[in-house]
């Protein structure tokens, strides 16, 4: 991935992160992109330094009897990149609403 150019999928993912969707599956829900696109894109963004990942607190996970989840957040470079991408893909902001509630599920 070039330093100065972002694919549309990557831009959408950055926008989703900015909107507060931090987990891979949440990003899939909001963007509609398949997991086979979202995860490799996240890895590449992380390699490029636009995104960093953290594990959630152990205690939270233990309560729900599952392993801790990994969440992603934008770095400063990522924010700059997103701003640039917004100017290129003008519909980007309108494409998603900021996160308010729990993620939608297919049952909803």
């Amino acid at each position, binding site marked *: 991935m070039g330093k100065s150019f972002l694919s549309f999928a990557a831009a959408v993912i950055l926008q989703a992160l900015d909107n507060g969707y931090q*987990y891979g599956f949440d990003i899939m829900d909001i963007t509609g992109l398949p*997991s*086979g696109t979202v*995860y*490799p894109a996240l890895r590449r963004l992380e390699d490029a330094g636009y995104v960093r990942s953290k594990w959630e607190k152990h205690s939270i996970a233990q309560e729900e009897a*599952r*392993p*801790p*989840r990994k969440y992603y957040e934008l770095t400063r470079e990522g924010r700059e990149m997103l701003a640039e991408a917004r100017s290129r893909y003008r519909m980007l902001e309108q494409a998603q609403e900021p996160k308010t509630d*729990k993620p939608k599920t297919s049952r909803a």
Partner: protein
Amino acid sequence: MQTSPNNSPRFSRPHLALIRLIGVIVPQRLRADWRQEWEAELRFRETLLANWDKLDRRNKLDLLRRSLGAFWDALLLQPRRTEDEMFQDLRYGVRMLMKKPGFTFIAVLTLGLGIGANTAIFSLVNTVLLRPLPIAQPEQVVTLNFGAPGQGVFPLIGYPEYTDYRDRNQSLEGLAAMGMAQVGLSNNGVNERILGLHVTGNYFSLLGVGAALGRVITPEDDVTPGGHPIVVLSYQCWQQRFGADPQIVGRDLLISGRKFTVIGVAPKGFNGTELASTPELWFPMMMKPGLELGRGPIKGRTAPVGTIGRLKEGVSWAQAESDLNLIAAQIAREYPQADKGQIVVLSQPGLFGAAMRPMVLRFTAVAMGVVVLVLLLACTNLVNMLLARASERHKEIAIRLALGAGRMRVLRQLLTESVLLALLGSALGLALAYGAVEIVKFKLPVIFGFTQIELQMDWRVWVFTLALSLLTGALLGLLPALQATRPDLLPALKNESTLGGYRRSRLRNMLVVAQMSLSLVLLLCAGLVLRGLQRAQQIDPGFNPKQAVEVSFDLDVQKYNRERGSEFQRQALERVRSLPGLQSAALTTHAPLTSGEGGGKGVFIQGNEPKTATQAPIVLTTSISIDYFRTMETRLLQGRDFTAQDNASSPLVAIVNEAFARRFWPVENPIGKRFSFSGAAAGNWIEVIGVAQNGKYSSLATKNEPFVYLPLAQNYANKLTLIARSAADQRLLLATIRKEIHKLDENLTPYDARTMLEHMELPLAPARVAATALGAFGALALLLAAIGVFGVMSNAVTQRTREIGIRIALGAESKEIIRLIVGQGALLVGIGVGIGLVGAALGTRLLANLLFGVSALDPLTFVGVTALLAATAFLACYLPARRATKVDPMIALRHD
């Protein structure tokens, strides 16, 4: 980090099972984190959707779909694992190779030679056998060969039969015909004799070949005999002769004295369907004279054509062949005189139907076999060196193993090193092969009688070389690596030599034996071919090639008719004969030992005629002028020579050679006997007036070929070779003769002007190339084998230092020590030579047609080469043995 799994078994939740499975390909250091991330997401989603057991199928499927995406994620991470370890291995490998520059240099050089030879030969195989023709669906295209049972087949047929096959068959989408023609192209005041091809109107569309410029020949261009003076140029011709002139289409060219209009240029890379003859011009078939003549399959008939067809979709070779043979049977019934017993055999196009393929196959098989042998030899040597190195590195490896490296990991490290060596070697090899191909390019056409051939180093060659070097690397590395990583650590760590040493040396001994036998086989082949060449020089060709020159010219090219042509020939002979110092001069249609066009005809002996044309035995013929025998210094054994009285209006006469006379009139006197070339019914009886000595006609290897000389005055031909005998300077003579011919017709271009001694070199070219190549490879092999023996014996001396020290201390003399060591080596060499001799005895018969009558088991060669090898091997043993005698017993006994 991982928490205990949920109570429900993993397999009831296929998405989680899938994640574990896919995780296998994720690099180990990332795997735990990766699995956790995916598992956590999936399980979180589960809880979010309440209980798994209550989930409806849609949601289950959704989870499964999401976990499938993990595969792409894992795939992205996959290269990072191998990258890490490979870089480690490579860095280490490069460091190890740089630490021993001498070893690396020799190894790369050896491999480079071996792989280079393979690459060069493979590029030949690729060009003549593997590369598909640049036409649409080349696998559907076939060449038709015609013949009679038991007589061999030839890919030529009369034009009338061609039309029968074309119109009656059910199995071919189309059948096109083509006929070669040498034509004279006049361009900017220069006349050149180049190859043209007459093709039927369906030729280009059948092959699926379009035009790069203008258009190609279509069926409409091939209707009226002689009525379509148009021509398509080959791309190369357009580029080289016309400077890629963009205005070429529509231009008129003077070809063989007639105006032809250029209608187009064929695409780049399309040079017809035959590798052996690459036409520069294509004409409509109807422009070929004499098409309606000559029914029958025999070569040498008037205007025979080659055919090429495209199989219909779904029709197999066998089906097409039986269909065509049905037609052959019909034709045979309709024209029993010419076509009785005709059969059709399909073959791949490219190598003159079925005619040249066997020879090319054999040549390439031998060449490929030789270079593979050389590579094997090079490998054996390197394995030996690597084995020696592996025992030096025994301790290093033992430490690695002891520190917990897996055996596989160490193996991979060692293999990386050897593959690295092999890759370096193949880089050198490719460079060498490119050089070799450049050289061979100019030699090859002579060997195969090709007009032109482009050896192609395309992707197939690259893949072959890469595969070969990887294979070589694995072959090289595996044995030493397996040996080195054998897990008996303790003695190695304690720096003790172990029983392993014996096992190792046994392996090395076997390799030396193998090397000895391989190099013996190669050297024997080289020796035999050299002997064959020597023998060939002594073969009596039936004429005296010394102090004679030849010049050929083709009057067809300038459209001479018989009358003008005869006059031209008479004047040319007259002018040449009047040159100062000239002894004699004559004309012939086929100078002996000229490759290519045969001039073979079916013979009917009066009183003993075969029933059909196809049963008539075929003999070679040539038409000659007066004075031919005197010029060639061929002896007449019986009867008389042709005279000026044997002309077009006198009875037909011939002079036959001894073999002809013996074969057809074993007891009677051949003089006055009569035979015919056109069958008993047609008559045209020719009377034998003389018998000439036997000679070599089609090749030096043949024996007692029947041959017929006809007077040129009764058998006019336009394409002739002038032979002149003179003691004067041969170069000067050639120049003068060319000048004289030029004076007679300045548009005529003489070709093949050379001395008869140069002419004699041509049939020997294949053997000479083979001898050079085999000799070079054989010498290389001998050198490699000698190094191998030397290495093994040095090692043996080192290993037995203590033993030798004790022997010397106990009073053994140098002579005895030398006998001990040399004896050990001699045993290895002896076994190797034995195996090699058996191998050679089986293998050398493949060379039979390069040997010119030397036995494939020629004792002189076998004894001489074996002695050479033994002497070299002895020297290689003797040097370490002498070192052994210098062992100081005091030091030896203290040795570890």
